[in-house]
């Protein structure tokens, strides 16, 4: 029996298991939206979860997947990434993240997603099954897409698009001279002027887009002709509050300014970055503005801040009732697999453990408006799940099995292939490996 299990788990690791309709049995189920269910079951039919519980009737003929001794979790969701848009940071040709010019609301991340990026299998092998990808150059940077991390092409992998309109809030603080810098920093006045200019750019873009929207609606109702504008057109969903505006703002004055701006423009705001968000927690909580915090594993922003300043932010946001989730940041997407460890660090420094798990599953889904389909194990949602041999927020755990919308996920990657090749290279010392079989 043990051999069979081992064989099964080996098969499982190579992705040759149940598709579409199956039942996971014997493991501890963590719905995230409710308490954990030891020895629970999850029934999946045609890619959707139909039943979750301790004693659930499994329909006849449905294949069972034995998860005894293992844990069942929702797949993790990474927000505001560049996955699929960038392969190797140093190689310019592989980057589709920064378009030229400051106003590019119509840069649609969706159409540039490389479905076969080597980075995708690496991310999903550790349980990140869904991502949101966005461009990030300029001031109004583009329109993002939410997509599942397995499929044939972006058309087929898209879950929601447009997902959000993205804005980089201009820097709001005057930098003084760094004495070790050879380049003198621009004068306070010049910096102020640059800042005014950038802020005006943002404001004008929204005002112009509003005017455009109004004029086009009037035209549709029989009024005068107005030409199509690719940029303002792309802003309409955000103006209509159908999608949120994700504003990259870390520093106190940036966040405050973004809050004022969103109120004035009457758009749905989400703060991305949010380093100082806890300092404005009351305002954020009162306005129900979510924060996508992607700075957990960072240095404190200021030399005089406590050493754990970045680690403690999610805990503070939670305590203040600010809606939030945790992400990894936009520098590159090569290590989205470490998303759970960002949440884990927040848990070590004040965020309750269950909240840390929600911060990478249910809360991202809610912020993106896809919580009807993703983020927890509940009937009616997609069977986008992982089975692990331990707490996924602990580093030593492994993902043993995974499904996206009921399709089994291939957990191999460029890394596992190279691993297999070189661990099997004949040893020069003729000895035997000390390592166990591949996890």
């Amino acid at each position, binding site marked *: 029996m043990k051999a069979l299990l081992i064989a099964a788990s080996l098969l499982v690791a190579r992705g040759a298991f149940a598709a579409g309709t199956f039942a996971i049995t014997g493991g501890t189920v963590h719905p995230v939206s409710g308490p954990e269910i030891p020895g629970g079951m999850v029934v999946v039919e045609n890619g959707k979860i139909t039943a979750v519980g301790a004693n659930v009737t499994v329909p006849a003929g449905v294949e069972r997947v034995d998860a005894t001794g293992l844990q069942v979790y929702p797949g993790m969701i990474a927000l505001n990434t560049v996955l699929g848009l960038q392969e190797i940071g140093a190689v310019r040709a592989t980057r589709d993240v920064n378009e030229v010019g400051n106003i590019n609301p119509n840069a649609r991340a969706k159409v540039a997603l490389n479905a076969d990026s080597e980075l995708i299998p690496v991310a999903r092998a550790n349980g990140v099954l869904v991502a949101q990808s966005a461009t990030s150059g300029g001031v109004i940077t583009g329109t993002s897409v939410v997509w599942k991390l397995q499929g044939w092409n972006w058309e087929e992998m898209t879950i929601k698009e447009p997902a959000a309109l993205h804005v980089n809030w201009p820097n*709001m*603080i*005057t930098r003084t001279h760094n*004495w070790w810098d*050879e380049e*003198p920093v621009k004068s306070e006045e010049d910096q102020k002027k640059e800042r005014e200019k950038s802020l005006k750019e943002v404001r004008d873009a929204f005002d112009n887009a509003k005017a455009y929207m109004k004029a086009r609606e009037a035209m549709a109702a029989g009024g005068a002709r107005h030409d199509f504008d690719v940029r303002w057109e792309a802003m309409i969903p955000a103006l209509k509050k159908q999608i949120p505006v994700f504003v990259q703002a870390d*520093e*106190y*004055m940036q966040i*405050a300014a973004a809050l004022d701006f969103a109120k004035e423009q009457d758009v749905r705001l989400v703060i991305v970055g949010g380093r*100082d968000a806890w*300092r404005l927690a009351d305002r954020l909580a009162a306005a129900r503005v979510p924060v996508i915090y992607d700075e957990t594993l960072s240095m404190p922003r*200021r*030399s*005089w801040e406590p050493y754990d300043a970045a680690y403690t932010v999610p805990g503070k946001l939670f305590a203040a009732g600010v809606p939030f989730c945790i992400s990894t940041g936009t520098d590159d997407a090569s290590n989205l697999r470490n998303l759970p460890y960002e949440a884990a660090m927040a848990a070590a420094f004040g965020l309750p453990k269950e909240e840390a798990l929600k911060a990478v599953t249910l809360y991202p889904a809610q912020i993106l408006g896809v919580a009807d389909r993703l983020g927890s194990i509940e009937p009616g949602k997609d069977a986008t799940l992982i089975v692990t041999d331990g707490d996924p927020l602990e580093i030593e755990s492994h993902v043993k099995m995974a499904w996206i919308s009921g399709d089994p996920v291939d957990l191999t990657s460029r890394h596992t292939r190279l691993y297999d090749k070189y661990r099997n290279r004949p040893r020069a010392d003729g000895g035997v490996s000390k390592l166990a079989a591949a996890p």
Partner: protein
Amino acid sequence: MSFSRRTLLLLFTLSLTLPQLARGQGPVRTPRVHALTGARIVLAPGRVIEKGTIVVRDGIIEAVGASVSIPADARIWKVDSLTIYAGLIDLAMPVSVTPADQGGDQGGGGRRQPDAPKEKPGAFHELDVVTPEIVLADRLAMKDGDRTGRRNVGITTVRVIPEKGVFRGEAAILDLGDGPLADNLLRREAGQVISFATASGDQYPASTMGTVAVLRQTIMDTRWYADAHAAYESKPVGLERPKTNVAFEALLPSVQGKEPIIFVTDDVLDVLRAKELEKEFGLQFAYVGSGEEYKRLHDVGKLPRGIVVPVNFPEAPSVDEPGQALTLSTETLRHWQNAPGNLAQLNAAKMPFAITAMGLKDVSAFRKNVAKAISRGLSADAALAATTTVPASMVGLSDRLGTIEAGKIANLVVTDGPLFSDSTKVRAVWVDGDRFEVEDVKPPQGDPRGTWELVATMNGTDYPSTLILSGQVGGLSGTLKVAGQETPATITQSGSNVIVSFPGEAIGETGPIRFTLTVKGDQATGDGSTAHGSFTLTGKRTAKPGLDEGGAR
């Protein structure tokens, strides 16, 4: 508009100090015997004569005391209710070196090939930062504004140091009189100046550790050079001759401990690092400090040749908006608070120190800042010593400078109160027995630098000219383009007034011509006068200055 009596006096005084005209009437032969009577005289820190007289003859103090007989040929200056101090000595005045016609920097990016010697005429060191052979006194580019700026706060003697490089060249000591350098120079070679400055552009060394390597290698090379050449000279036959290198030759006396080395530091870690070099090479440096010594005073320990310390305390940072306070580091706030106390700590630690005006954005704040240091625990006597007797002693000129004593150079500061007090004004400064009136100068307000198009209207006719103001606020320099000629101008800034004085010869007049501009934003109005009458002025600023060159490093 009539001349004020004061202006008359000023013009008269100025005329005494004008450079002798080569083709004019012949040298001015005004007697240089003066008696300053009725003043409170501070002979030296802690030695005061409540009411006395100083007699000055031909630039030297002839006599000083409570009851001194006044020579019959003396011109009398009644300075009752005023105080006289010995002229102050500033041992760290950075100045730029006028460029020689050496092949300049390799512009246009691209890093050097390693081991490819630089194409410079002459047998110099290949690195731009190693120029110990420069004698600053021979290439001094000191602007008028720098000289008067310091003089107006009572500094009468300075040691000028080159601004840039690792091995920068020889410092010089001079008095701050007007006139050619030949008249003012006290010491043409006053010590080799070195520092941890990195090279500019993409030149080696770009890192601080690179400059340390340059320092060590160059000192070793200098010693080796001496040995190699000695070996060669003693027996040249049969030996390939060693290369010639002017830099090593210039550096040898310092490296052998025969000549002082002045080490310029930017922070306290620089001092600790320099001390390691002292240990390694058996040298002793005279330091120029940063004001941060208090941070690791205990580690700095003993500095036998002392340290010259600036008083450029940081301004209070702006904290008005709520988000702004967050941007202020605790380090910045603490240093703002602690910096003025630095000198008191050095004094308490019995560290030999002198005070310099180096690094002040506005030189006229010098006395006020020393006053601040006094309010933080530095005794007034120690402050005075640090600006007179201690620097004199550091450069071996105690016999000639630092106190008011018969036989010493007549460098004096006349004030209407205690020297280091914000409410005291400096009334006059004597350099080598020549008197310089100090304007009732208010602290400068605003930044009038740039290019001004002026129109002077006299008797209904307009005379255009261009005035270029450069340098630093509080120590401005100027050039006036008028009647097809370019002529340097002396600039004084008082409040938002700019007082310009230039030689009238430029427009066919004799003697200096003065005018005052009141600056408001980019507009100015003013007036002035010549022998032929007075004129009004309007001006418009047409260009703002570029960024400053930056500090000593």
